[in-house]
């Protein structure tokens, strides 16, 4: 078995839905706000 298929066997794979939501605009807009909030919180904690 080649290195690639052996690695494939042991790794976690995303489902179709996970992949879909990564570029689904409405969901990503929500994530955009949420990630920004998280980062602002991190910046506030670090300065």
């Amino acid at each position, binding site marked *: 078995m080649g290195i690639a298929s052996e*690695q494939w066997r042991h790794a976690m*794979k995303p489902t179709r839905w996970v992949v879909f939501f*990564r570029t689904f605009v409405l969901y*990503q807009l929500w*994530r*955009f706000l949420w990630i920004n909030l998280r*980062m602002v919180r991190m*910046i506030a904690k*670090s300065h």
Partner: protein
Amino acid sequence: MARVVVLGAGISGHTAALILRKKLARLHEVVVVSPARRWNWIPSNIWVGVGRMKKEQVTFELAPVYARAGITFRQARAVEIHPSGRAGAPEPYVVVESTAPDSQGAREEIAYDYLVNATGPKLNFGATPGLGPEGNSLSVCTFDHAEQTAHALDEAIARMKEGAKLTFVVGMGHGLCTCEGAAFEYAFNLEFELRRAGVREQARIVFLTNEAEVGDFGVDGLQIRRGGYDVPSSVFAESMFVERGIEWITGAHVHSVDPNEVTYETLDGQKRTLAFDFAMLLPPFTGVGLKAFDQDGQEITSELFAPNSFMKVDANYTAKPYEEWTPEDWPRTYQSPLFPNVFAVGIAFAPPHALSRPRKTENGVPVAPAPPRTGMPSGIMGRAVALSIADMIKRGAKQPTHEASMAKMGAACVASAGVGFWSGSAVSMTMYPVVPDYARYPGAGRSTRHTTGEVGAAGHWIKHILHHLFLYKAKAYPGWWLIPE
């Protein structure tokens, strides 16, 4: 009147200089010494390296910005520090060597009251025979390297369009490298571009890294809370590689890079070769090699600097095993223990030790990712030191008044995985603190609330916005100081 000299105009030095200028009255002088004429937003070099941006989009001329801000600029390379001046004239000074076209090589002494060493890394391609653009591999560390890499990629894609099957190796060119995140980003952007060009099927992509596990990033990995579990970042990183069909080789020290072949050794002591058509391998970093002298002209470099040429600051440099590392080992004020008017920030300060567990191969070759000092911590250090110096000058403070320990600081990092408003994506990561604190956060060493990561287009939008935001800030346009590091 006081003069503050800042060596280096990268993320940390430029931040320090702008804040000093903002805080100090005009009777005080802020001088920046930097060999490069242009400022570079280094994180976007990844996009230059896949041909998605031109180098003009990630750089700008420093001189007009400094002229507007009221900062004196010397296009020069610092070579010597004389922290106690010379016999009979105790005023400290630095010796700089011009890199400007009209005065190339001319030496000048610049006296200082306060010195900030923000000279970043020397890209030590020489550590591995054949490594680097002068040898047999490519790099994205500078905008010129990145542009050269983009040309090589164009050629590779053209060959593949004619039917060639090619192997791409991306990763770290030495066992002691840092900045694994940048190689990770490049691997994903490369894969994305090959897909976009319709030649992905003809490409084998291998990620070759000194990390013991992918997703270590030189910070000993992260634990991310997901689905009711605390999941190691290696699980997510491996998943991303597998999803995109990228193979990975971990725990590797690269011995040499020959034309079209890399020789490496892994932790099990096995020496192997890997044939490639295109290799983008990052170099290990050292300090830039500044020398220091006492009043009598005797060299004191080893007192001011660690053996790797990074400047010693208020860290605990006692050598100790991984199990005994503590967050308190990390510096807080970045002040030199020997000269209270000398500071080192960003990559230029000597870290007390790594963050990832150091390992050796079965043959005793060290494979130990060096600790990253990424953009956000570098900028925050620059700010803290600038504020301390401003207080020392204005209020006569005897000690630095601001601290910025990486053990009390978080980092936000967005690792691009492909460019495109609709189809692009990036990994948005936050970690707190950067230096793990196992007493405060048993198990993970970091807050599982504030240590997060996710993949999606939102990350790409953020990365793109940050690109413009940080260029705006670096150009010192109105309100620049409202944008945090």
